[in-house]
């Protein structure tokens, strides 16, 4: 069965270029210039879909982005795509959705019989029993029934780009208003971007047959194309408007091809000085019983199919309207030889329309609407109601309930649309600065007035963008506008047995809206959320306003008081992949590589992600898994010498006459008296008195310090220093410069490290006397300045060697080569982190912004007399409580078991529940003690040294015995450090 056919001539399709596509696996043909929708109609596909809830047969209803019914899966991986928005291309595969076994014969249509149970809000009223969590039983069924199309779990084969653009005037929409404004603004010299979601420019004009219109259109388009300062983007939708005139555009590329690196879509962030909204209007359906049968269509859509795609109803069409515009469809159809019957809700119809209708031999029924529509799979007969109650046989029923200006984008700025009685629709409630409206969006529908307005809006926008030289206005065609007349008709008083749909996609009927009203869900948002009205993929473009009108009627108040709906971006569905662009997968976030990355690789490092960094985790020489390798690497450092990449440390150069004063303020301990050539460990607090970070600072010269931070806090600390210096302590003469990327660092650690350095820098005096613990030495090698700091994270005799990044690789190789006789090898992050546990140095897991100096056993280093950031709030009551959880060492007492990070600590006699007395932060196998040891925080801290505790890990049903010990597991006196 079919309701449509294609004419042999006419339309804008290119009959020379046929296009093959498949629909549910069957091959069909169309022409270049077709959309999937027009091609389906031309192929006689009237029933194309099933509705969401009741699985009612549905056909294509519109010719644009507002399409609620005709949704398809495209090419197997894109669900829910309106056929009206898909350009027909060779090889396109369209699949129908939400029906089983097929749309023609859908067993799920049984839902229709249970419809009375599925009254609106039914799921709020049931599925509660019999048990507390009974919803868990029902939910899977509900979920399976919901959801329309199917997504694909495969990786998206397509590629998306993002771009930024700037212009003086952006024009959204290329109908008569958009073309006019763009041209006027273009003539003024402004850089104009004109965007149009369609593949052709012209908007409504593309559905006109009048030669004058076409002449006008081609003339303006030709001039626009000739202007170098005008950029035209077709297939481009303005999706959203954001603060400060950012408009997000989505451009769909015609020749996308991932294999050749051609993107499918480009998301453009465009910033324009002025914006003109020429977004037009969308026709709204009329609401009457069974208004959803396949073959029921918007009147303007039918006209578009006729004039643009050369598709007509098989023989007979019935048109029902409450306004004048539907007559254009009627007249064009009649002229094409189709038998047209016209039902108009209005009793009084403009006489020019009546006489033209009579001339064309159309049957006219004034004061008449629709009582019912018959036809199981497509319209066959229509029952009229009102002044006339005839039954009309027809193939297609076209409807027009009036026009809704597309106020979406103007509303994104937060300006609510307002109701305009003259056109019975909402128009923009105003414009933000440098925003302008033109054409149908403002509620003006006549061509001449649109051009006139467009000329003004174009000039205003150009002026707002700084181009105030008057430009020649765009000529009109000198026709006479006829006044637009509408008498709103929101819904029939009764709907009898038939369902009268307001929201076609979400299957919301007049009755549902009445129910919502009865139950008090009368606020527009309540109505939408309770009935799911407007929540479908069409975002309610054809339904929202009808629903508001109906609700206002039920509440017996003017629409202006009933409220309006919120329009949220994006304007049409926007692929998440297109927003993300290429910042996904491997490119999701940058990889930060140490200057020694290649050297590490060459030496067999396995890397691990540490924040943005890739760090050498362990090296192949020591083993093939981290669990085994780190132990060998620890032994190397404890017994011989190892070298580790520590380039990720934050490095800040602090210079200026007040550098000492500055550091004195930010660190809890003093730096003013630090002698030149010496380094000192320092801790800084946030204003709230909690530890922010630690590191070492070396005095290079009187007014020059070199500070390191932890890897994790490098960015924070830098920004904090800048904040203090630039906004608070502006009197301090200090400059801070990040050297994190400019300098590399390597730790040379172990009892043989001095020998290694001596070999590496034969001319330098690295003796204990010349370079004592916490000493600093600048040396030169092949003319490169190298900074050696005698610092130790591992607790061994150790040095940090800092070198400009570009020489890091060569120096690393140099040290490894010359110290080879000492058995030097690289060691990685896992060993670094384990060695420091043995030594009792705190790191990231202990420095988690919850702990105070005292918690970490560092209270002693804070200057008593001196002031420092965080000093005042550090002494708040609870932060000084004696039983705070503070740093302890933990030794495992059960040799055959393990300690685990994240274990909760209890005193030996405690009941094992609640929050415990502390927890384990970091664990390692101690190569020195030959047992598992850990750092942790424990209530009362080292007051409990020597006590037995339980480490509970209920996630693995484990409890192990351990003991509180000093966190300094090795070399408490520091003999090794100072060796």
């Amino acid at each position, binding site marked *: 069965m079919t309701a449509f056919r294609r004419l042999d001539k006419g339309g804008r399709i290119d009959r020379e270029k046929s296009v093959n596509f498949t629909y549910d696996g069957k091959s069909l043909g169309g022409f270049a210039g077709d959309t999937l929708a027009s091609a389906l109609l031309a192929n006689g596909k009237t029933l194309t879909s099933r509705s969401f809830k009741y699985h009612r047969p549905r056909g294509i209803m519109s010719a644009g982005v507002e399409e609620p019914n005709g949704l398809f899966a495209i090419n197997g991986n894109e669900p829910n795509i309106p056929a009206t928005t898909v350009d027909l291309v060779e090889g396109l595969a369209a699949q129908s959705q939400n029906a089983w076994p097929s749309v023609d014969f859908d067993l799920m249509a049984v839902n229709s019989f249970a419809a009375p149970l599925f009254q609106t809000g039914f799921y709020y009223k049931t599925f509660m029993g019999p048990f507390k969590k009974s*919803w868990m039983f029902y939910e899977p069924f509900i979920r399976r029934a919901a959801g329309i199309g199917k997504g694909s779990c495969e990786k998206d084969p397509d590629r998306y780009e993002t771009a930024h653009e700037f212009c003086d005037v952006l024009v959204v929409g290329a109908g008569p208003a958009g073309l006019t404004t763009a041209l006027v603004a273009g003539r003024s010299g402004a850089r104009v971007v004109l965007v149009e979601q369609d593949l052709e420019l012209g908007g409504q004009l593309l559905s006109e047959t009048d030669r004058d219109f076409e002449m006008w259109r081609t003339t303006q388009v030709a001039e626009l194309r000739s202007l170098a300062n005008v950029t035209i983007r077709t297939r481009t939708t303005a999706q959203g408007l954001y603060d400060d005139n950012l408009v997000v555009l989505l451009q769909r590329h015609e020749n996308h091809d991932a294999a050749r690196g051609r993107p499918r879509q480009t998301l453009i*962030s465009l910033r324009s000085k002025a914006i003109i909204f020429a977004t037009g209007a969308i026709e709204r359906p009329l609401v009457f019983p069974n208004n959803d049968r396949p073959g029921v269509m918007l009147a303007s859509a039918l006209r578009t199919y006729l004039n643009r795609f050369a598709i007509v109803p098989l023989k007979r069409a019935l048109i029902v309207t409450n306004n004048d515009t539907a007559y254009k469809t009627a007249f064009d159809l009649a002229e094409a030889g189709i038998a047209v019957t016209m039902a108009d809700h209005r009793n009084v119809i403009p006489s020019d329309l009546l006489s033209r209708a009579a001339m064309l031999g159309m049957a006219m029924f004034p004061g008449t609407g629709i009582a019912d529509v018959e036809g199981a799979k497509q319209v066959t007969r229509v029952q009229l109601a009102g002044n006339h109650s005839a039954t009309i046989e027809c193939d297609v029923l076209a409807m027009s309930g009036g026009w809704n200006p597309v106020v979406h984008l103007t509303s994104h700025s937060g300006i609510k649309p307002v109701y305009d009685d003259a056109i019975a629709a909402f128009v923009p409630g105003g414009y933000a600065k440098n925003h302008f409206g033109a054409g149908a969006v403002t509620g003006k529908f006549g061509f001449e007035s649109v051009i006139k307005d467009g000329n003004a809006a174009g000039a205003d926008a150009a002026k707002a963008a700084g181009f105030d030289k008057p430009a020649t206005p765009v000529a009109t065609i000198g026709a006479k506008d006829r006044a637009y007349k509408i008498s709103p008709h929101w819904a029939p008083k009764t709907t009898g047995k038939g369902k009268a749909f307001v929201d076609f996609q979400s299957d919301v009927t007049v009755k549902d809206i009445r129910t919502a009203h009865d139950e008090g869900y009368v606020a527009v948002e309540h109505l939408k959320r309770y009935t799911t009205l407007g929540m479908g993929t069409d975002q309610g473009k054809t339904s929202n306003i009808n629903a508001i009108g109906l609700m206002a009627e039920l509440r017996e108040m003017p629409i202006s008081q009933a409220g309006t709906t919120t329009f949220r971006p*994006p304007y049409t569905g926007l692929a998440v992949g297109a*927003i*993300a662009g290429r910042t996904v*997968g491997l490119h999701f976030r940058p990889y930060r590589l140490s200057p020694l990355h290649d050297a590490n690789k060459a030496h067999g490092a396995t890397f691990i992600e540490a924040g943005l960094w890739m760090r050498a985790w362990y090296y192949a020489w020591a083993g093939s898994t981290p669990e085994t390798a780190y132990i060998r690497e620890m032994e190397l450092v404890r017994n011989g010498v190892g070298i580790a990449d520590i380039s990720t440390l934050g490095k800040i150069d602090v210079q200026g006459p007040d550098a000492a004063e500055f550091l004195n303020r930010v660190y809890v301990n003093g730096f003013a008296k630090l002698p030149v050539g010496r380094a000192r460990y320092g801790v800084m607090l946030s204003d709230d008195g909690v530890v922010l970070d630690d590191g070492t600072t070396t005095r290079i010269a009187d007014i020059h310090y070199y500070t390191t931070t932890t890897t994790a806090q490098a960015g924070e600390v830098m920004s904090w220093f800048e904040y203090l210096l630039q906004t608070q302590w502006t009197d301090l003469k200090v400059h801070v410069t990040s050297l994190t990327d400019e300098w590399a660092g390597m730790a040379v650690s172990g009892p043989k490290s001095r020998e290694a350095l001596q070999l590496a820098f034969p001319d330098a005096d690295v003796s204990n006397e010349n370079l004592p613990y916490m000493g600093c030495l600048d040396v030169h090698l092949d003319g490169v300045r190298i900074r050696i700091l005698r610092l130790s994270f591992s607790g061994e005799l150790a040095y940090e060697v800092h070198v400009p990044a570009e020489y890091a690789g060569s120096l690393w190789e140099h040290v490894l080569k010359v110290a080879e006789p000492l058995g030097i090898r690289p060691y990685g992050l896992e060993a670094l982190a384990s060695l420091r546990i043995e030594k009792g140095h705190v790191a990231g897991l202990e420095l988690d912004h919850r702990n105070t100096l005292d918690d970490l056993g560092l209270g002693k280093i804070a200057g008593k007399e001196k002031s420092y950031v965080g000093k005042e709030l550090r002494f708040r009551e609870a932060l000084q409580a004696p039983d705070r959880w503070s740093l302890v060492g933990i030794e495992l007492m059960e040799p055959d078991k393990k300690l685990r990070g994240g274990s909760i600590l209890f005193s030996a006699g405690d009941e*094992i529940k609640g929050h415990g007395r502390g927890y384990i932060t970091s664990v390692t196998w101690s190569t020195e003690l030959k047992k598992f040891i850990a750092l942790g925080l424990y209530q009362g801290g080292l007051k409990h040294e020597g006590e037995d505790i339980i480490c509970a890990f209920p996630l693995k049903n484990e409890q192990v015995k351990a003991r509180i010990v000093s966190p300094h597991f090795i070399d408490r006196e520091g003999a090794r450090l100072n060796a």
Partner: protein
Amino acid sequence: MFKPYSALALAKHALSPDRPWPRAWNSPEPKSSYDAIVIGGGGHGLATAYYLAKNHGLTNVAVLERNYIGSGNVGRNTTIIRSNYMIDGNTQFFEHSLKLWEGLSHELNFNCMVSHRGQVVLAVSPAQLDTFARRGNIMRLNGIDAELLDRGQVMKLLPYLDYSKDARWPIYGGIIQERAGTVRHDAVAWGYARAADTLGVHIIENCEVTGFVMDGDKAVGVETSRGKILAGKIGIAVAGHSSHVAKMAGLRVPIETHVLQAFVTEPVKPMVDHVISWGAELFYLSQSDKGGMVFGGHIDGFNTYTQRGQFPRIQTVAECAVSLLPLMSKLRLLRHWGGVMDMTPDGSPFIGRTERPNLYFNGGWCYQGFKATPASGWTFAHTIAHDEEHELNRAYSLDRFEKGRELDEFGIGNWTYKQ
């Protein structure tokens, strides 16, 4: 008047469609005085009114909402509920909330679609898995369910995540709370409103509080867009507008208002059965019963009362979505929106008395106020009724920063300098 909801009632109604359902809640004119007033018809305000009536027998109560009920964050959030909290004070409070969620549909005779579908938090480093373990252990020690998952288990449970070499951060494992999940957010507002209304509470919409009526230090009533209303006790529960309303009573609170965005895609057949959160960057996603993917990330990062988000954040969130779940790439975003959130320095809320007698404060909910709704109402009602804190909200005092009693659940410190 009250007509219980049930399958049977639905069937009866289907047979006699002419007898309409009664209103879910009434729309009375405000009286000149009440025993107690709750400002804010969001989840917390409505729950408070319900528990005032239900638990404490206070029924001469009004909820004043400046717009329609549920117009704030209760109707804008990403609907995640869970009780994976490890700081003493938070753990018990949020678990109490989850327990109340479990019976809520029954209790309110309104199906809130409380879905215990399970929440999986994914770890992107071994160290992160340790911090998850600490959280999970605390949960288990407090009788709350939690399981640690290794990479293999995660792969089995969530086969559609990116486990390939293209993933920027590999997934090392995760932690799951089976009882966590999602709730139909609007139903929570409507369900509490209907149940409170049934007990005699006045739900008054389109009634904006514009000032307080003071008697010396004491709050004795409110000025509203619908006139002056006196009250014995007044509770503030206005979420993103906390500072604004508190200021009317001369209070300065540790709250800044930020916008958090949320996103929903077109509906598709079931693909994602859990709530998923990521350890790489703040990102969370679930598939609604209707089929749309509902997801979100961080706040935009500067204070604002506009309910509009900035585009860079939208891109960040989309990048997270596609990078973690490649299936998101082709799905189309249908709507995104913002809600104004009451952010506190430590990320934890306030429920308690204020320095003004008779005036009580509830706010500072940050990312987590939806899951807190039942317990928040429960404890706030207790505090209002008895003029003292319930043991579950004792930690949530407004002056806790003076004492150094921060409740820093995530160890990120003061958020104003972190983004």
